[in-house]
């Protein structure tokens, strides 16, 4: 199966071209955009882990290692496209246009953090695994019904492929040729379960055969390759050719969440050792050097900007107005039912509780 779905790559481990035909599209400006976003979400991710350690936010879900997959896919999207991320895809969400302040609020257990982005149709991160795949299908069917050229993208992990909703969501999309891209990040683990124990298939991409749809297996550490794979799939979607399954082969450098101890189930030292070799940011840096467009000062200025952006967002999160107990009651229905209203009044009469 690996032969049938060769790994799509644009640049090699050292950042050198493997497919020079893409040179034109990947202008200096474009490449810098890629790097900027990867650096931005990497910095954010490190901050997230730190904030959790300091007890300033709740459990955090790091994505270090998956930046190329998340940035490459997000940058391929059109403004009117729909994004369905999981809890680990906030890197992609931020790249597409999620609001940093809300994102942090989310890690602080604030429902305001689930609000869709102010600019883009980014759905709240799906917590129950794979359940959002049928949503992406339905959103896409609705776009088709309205006669637009918009598409949807659903993010999910290797573990998610074992759930019934993965299967049902893709099957329905395939039948109705819904304009949707199923974007899998195979990071090798579902919490502690290695992908070899998650499935008996050699690849994830081969599951596309079950639905008679195209599959693309792509190097998920190569942001360019991911970008082109997703662009191609989106183009198919927009032109009525239906869904595509993409497997981006990537790696989760750290723990599943800040509550997880990966040394329980894998050789984390080994991962830390090879990390730099495969790091998607370093690879992009090598690429830029190779093309002679790398300037340390430029990186420094990017970093300063990102840090500032982060500090502002953190301050915003930490000075955010206290959670409003009413919010819990007021949005279950357009009009609260009498049981909800009764419960709310009772709690408010006791002084808002908590």
């Amino acid at each position, binding site marked *: 199966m690996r032969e049938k779905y060769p790994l799509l790559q644009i640049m090699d481990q050292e950042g050198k071209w493997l497919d020079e035909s893409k040179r034109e599209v990947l202008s200096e400006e474009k490449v810098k955009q890629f790097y900027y976003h990867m650096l931005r979400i990497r910095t954010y991710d490190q901050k997230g882990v730190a904030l959790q350690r300091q007890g300033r936010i709740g459990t955090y879900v790091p994505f270090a290692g998956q930046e190329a997959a998340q940035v490459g896919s997000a940058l391929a999207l059109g403004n009117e496209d729909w994004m369905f991320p999981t809890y680990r895809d906030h890197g992609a969400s931020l790249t597409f246009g999620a609001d940093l302040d809300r994102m942090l609020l989310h890690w602080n257990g604030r429902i*305001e953090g689930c609000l869709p982005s102010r600019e883009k149709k980014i759905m709240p991160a799906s917590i129950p695994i794979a*359940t959002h795949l049928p*949503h992406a299908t*339905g959103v896409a069917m*609705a776009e088709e019904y309205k006669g637009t050229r918009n598409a949807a993208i659903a993010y999910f992990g290797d573990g998610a492929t074992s759930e019934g909703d993965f299967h049902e969501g893709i099957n329905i999309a395939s039948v109705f040729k819904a304009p949707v891209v199923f974007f899998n990040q195979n990071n090798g683990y579902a919490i502690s379960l290695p992908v070899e124990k998650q499935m008996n298939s050699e690849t994830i991409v081969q599951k596309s055969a079950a639905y008679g749809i195209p599959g693309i297996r792509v190097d998920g550490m190569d942001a360019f390759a991911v970008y082109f794979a997703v662009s191609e799939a989106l183009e198919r979607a927009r032109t009525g050719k239906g869904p595509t399954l993409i497997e981006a082969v990537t790696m989760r450098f750290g723990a599943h969440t800040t509550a997880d101890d990966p040394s329980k189930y894998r050789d984390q030292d080994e991962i830390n050792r090879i990390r730099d070799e495969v790091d998607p940011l370093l690879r992009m840096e090598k690429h830029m050097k190779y093309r002679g467009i790398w300037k340390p000062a430029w990186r420094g200025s990017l970093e300063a900007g990102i840090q500032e952006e982060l500090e502002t967002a953190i301050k915003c999160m930490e000075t955010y107005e206290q959670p409003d107990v009413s919010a819990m009651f007021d*949005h*279950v229905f357009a009009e609260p039912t*009498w049981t909800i209203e009764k419960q709310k009044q009772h709690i408010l009469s006791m002084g808002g509780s908590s």
Partner: protein
Amino acid sequence: MALSKVANKQEVQVRAQELTMIQAINDGLKTMLEKDAKVLLLGEDIGKNGGVFRATDGLQNKFGEKRVIDTPLSEAGFVGAAVGMALNGLKPVVEIQFLGFVYPAFEQIATHVTRMRTRTLGYYSMPMVIRAPYGAGVRSPEIHSDSVEALFVHLPGIKVVCPSTPYDAKGLLIASIADPDPVLFLEPMRLYRGKRQEVPAHDYRIELGKGEIILQGEDVTIFAWGAMMPIAMEAAELMKEERISCEVIDLRTLYPLDKAIIADSVQKTGRVVIIHEGHETGGVGSEIVSVIMETSFLYLRAPIEKVTGFDVPVPLFALEHAYLPTTERVTEAIQKVYSF
């Protein structure tokens, strides 16, 4: 104003038809498909076949395959797809072929259909109806006869509606589709092809959350809904002979319950019988008991009696009548509360 009312009435008289419940449901769906291009139907065998009970008969022909969609055999998948459609501004009306086949979609309902509005503080809503025939008594195979409304009454974020007449079926269905929030619309199979009733051809709505007094009475209140209504009425009739005056209330909406109609009646009669075919333990009957406890404790003159399905899986059809509440069980309960 008065004039238009008259005109309206005339129109009703001209256009009203005698329909069975299944026809009234078909008519309600047609009405909303005509009225609102955002409404579309999804489900198994609802298109060409017109639904296994013919609830959607003729609708795909009339509105096309984009509006009346035959889905793959995939309850989680198409309820999930409906969630996506609702996110994207449409109003999907989903048919679950039998309520007993809603379980594969339970995940989608419990974590998404019911929570999307709260999750996004109202930014997104789920104007979705899930229709499902339910209940025993029509010799269906296993699992086809479940009556598990209580499960959904417990899930916050979805209303639960159940008509017992053709007129109510259309009016409640239209109100459910028009409602900005998700509604589980339960259709009593047993009454699908029962008594015909005059059903206006136009768009009319029956407010969700409101029960109706079907029979005024003084001595005992009977609460029921859906397929249990004819049994409630039959029992009430029989009790007249024994000079027990029953007030029969069709609750029609199971979440939110009509607290006012419950309290008013109980405070009048002080004696209550609740009928439902769902299992007793954890059933909606217990919730009604709890509402009475909260609103009308001091008015109760006898312990409330429940006549319900048992705490057993709904049996295959040779025994389904032994499972279902019967008029006999109801009259016994009425006599018990009356003579307490």
